[in-house]
């Protein structure tokens, strides 16, 4: 009887493990297939039945770099995602600090209003932004992307920082104020060190969202300031038949952020849930 129960448990455990492995393979398979295709020749890439074993070639990667200057787009992606994130943080850290420790009557309403600006569909304001950027001579520049990305992520960053700062006991700040520390000291030596994880997760989330942003990147840039999302979109048109090269370009576009995400998944979760789910 006892043995039967144990066997049941074991069977249950093994089937759960099996299910997990199968699900992981299913979910990861498209990425695996993309990487595999990037190592094929064009002919192998469209062969029926699909090839699993073949002599890998790294030719596609060098062709993509040569043909569309991958490095330029990658640099643009890095500059815009990191630039926008730093810009947003510089604005958000003092604001969130002030809202968390010196809340006014409307602080909560202001925070909700900030989140509601995220709901403004980009397409609803596309023409004005396009025309404004055009008249300022900012079309197809990294500057315009940095400004827009920063504004897009500012509400989320504000929320995150606010909820992380809120967790710092006010007593610590009061004690330091007794010792005569200035606002700047307080922020730099107490608030930021204590909420470092929160600030980092807000930054990480913002970087991932900027990296993958497609709407503005496609509509406001052309050759000069195009990010990797725009590069990939350009491969979807007639050239898109070259699957091996497309896969190579895609692999190169996603690898940095996927690896980045793997390293940071813990912080990211805290970031994504506004610090609410721990």
């Amino acid at each position, binding site marked *: 009887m006892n043995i039967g129960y144990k066997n049941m448990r074991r069977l249950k455990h093994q089937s759960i493990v099996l299910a997990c492995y199968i699900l992981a393979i299913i979910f990861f398979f498209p990425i695996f297939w993309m990487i595999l295709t990037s190592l094929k020749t064009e002919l192998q890439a469209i062969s029926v039945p699909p090839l699993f074993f073949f002599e890998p070639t790294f030719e596609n990667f060098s062709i993509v770099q040569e043909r569309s200057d991958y490095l330029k787009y990658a640099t643009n992606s890095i500059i815009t995602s990191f630039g926008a994130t730093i810009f947003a943080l510089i604005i958000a850290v003092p604001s969130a600090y002030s809202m968390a420790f010196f809340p006014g009557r409307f602080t909560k309403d202001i925070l909700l209003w900030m989140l509601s600006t995220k709901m403004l569909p980009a397409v609803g304001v596309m023409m004005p932004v396009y025309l404004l950027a055009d008249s300022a001579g900012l079309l197809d520049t990294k500057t315009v992307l940095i400004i827009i990305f920063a504004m897009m992520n500012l509400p989320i960053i504000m929320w995150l920082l606010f909820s992380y700062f809120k967790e710092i006991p006010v007593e610590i700040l009061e004690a330091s104020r007794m010792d005569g520390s200035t606002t700047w000291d307080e922020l730099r030596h107490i608030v930021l060190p204590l909420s470092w994880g929160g600030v980092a997760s807000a930054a990480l989330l913002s970087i991932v969202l900027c990296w993958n942003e497609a709407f503005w990147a496609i509509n406001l840039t052309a050759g000069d300031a195009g990010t990797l*999302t725009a590069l990939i979109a350009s491969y979807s048109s007639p050239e898109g038949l070259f699957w091996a090269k497309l896969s190579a370009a895609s692999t190169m576009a996603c690898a940095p952020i996927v690896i980045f995400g793997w390293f940071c998944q813990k912080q990211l979760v805290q970031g994504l849930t506004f610090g609410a789910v721990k």
Partner: protein
Amino acid sequence: MRVSFTKALQAPSIILLFLWMIVPLSMTLYFSFMRYNLLYPERSGYSGSLNYDFFLTDPALFDAVINTLTLVGSIIFISVVLGMGIALLLQEAFRGRGVVRLMLISPFFIMPTVNALIWKNMFMNPVYGLFAFISGVFGWPVVDWLADLPLLSIIIMLSWQWTPFALLIFMTSLQSMDKEQVEAAEIEGAGFWPKFRYLTLPHLYRAIAVVVMIQAIFHLSIFAEIFVTTGGGPGYDSTNTTFLIFTQALLQFDVGVASAGGVFAIVIANIIAIFLIKTVAQGMAK
């Protein structure tokens, strides 16, 4: 003195976001009442409600709204159910769980455009795609996914991307569940369903709210996936409101009509936003 200085620190974020909202919004509102087509710059001036009439009587609008709601609803439903199921399975400790977790989470970091192209070319292509190959092996009829089932194809792509997101959130939320409570319930002889219904689900409430709110924000304006795969077609079968306005604005160069559409999209988004913020965000701000 000091308090007023620290209060002033709030100003930059508020002012910048206010400008980011109000300037384009008022311009959109203004354009929506003007005759303004980039192809015919000589036609200008006040047009009354002409743009709205044009946009609102567009036969495609109804389809686009239905498609938008279908997309938002079904992607959220699939990702929440699947994500929660997988998160529960992953509570079991086993060798290689770390790798399994990384593999399951990876799709979330894939660019929307890449996501769309992988599925479009390598899976859903009716000649060379893997789905066609699998159908062939089993002797099933070959489906031209993007032409025959465009909306379902886009739902598959986005669910693949966003289920990992839901999974991430649920996984972390489950970690903080009160283990003693669960054990107590097990000793009392509670099976899977009662445990799920009365312990897990209430615990996950907040996480579900977060997942639904963030996904709603993003899925209301799905663009890249449609742009690189179906282009809204065939016909208007996979056009959502975002894409409809995009075609008005960029393909027909009609700023006036596109702005009227923008105002419409903003109104829809706000109805949903008010609902979501009331139910979700208010609780989280506490």
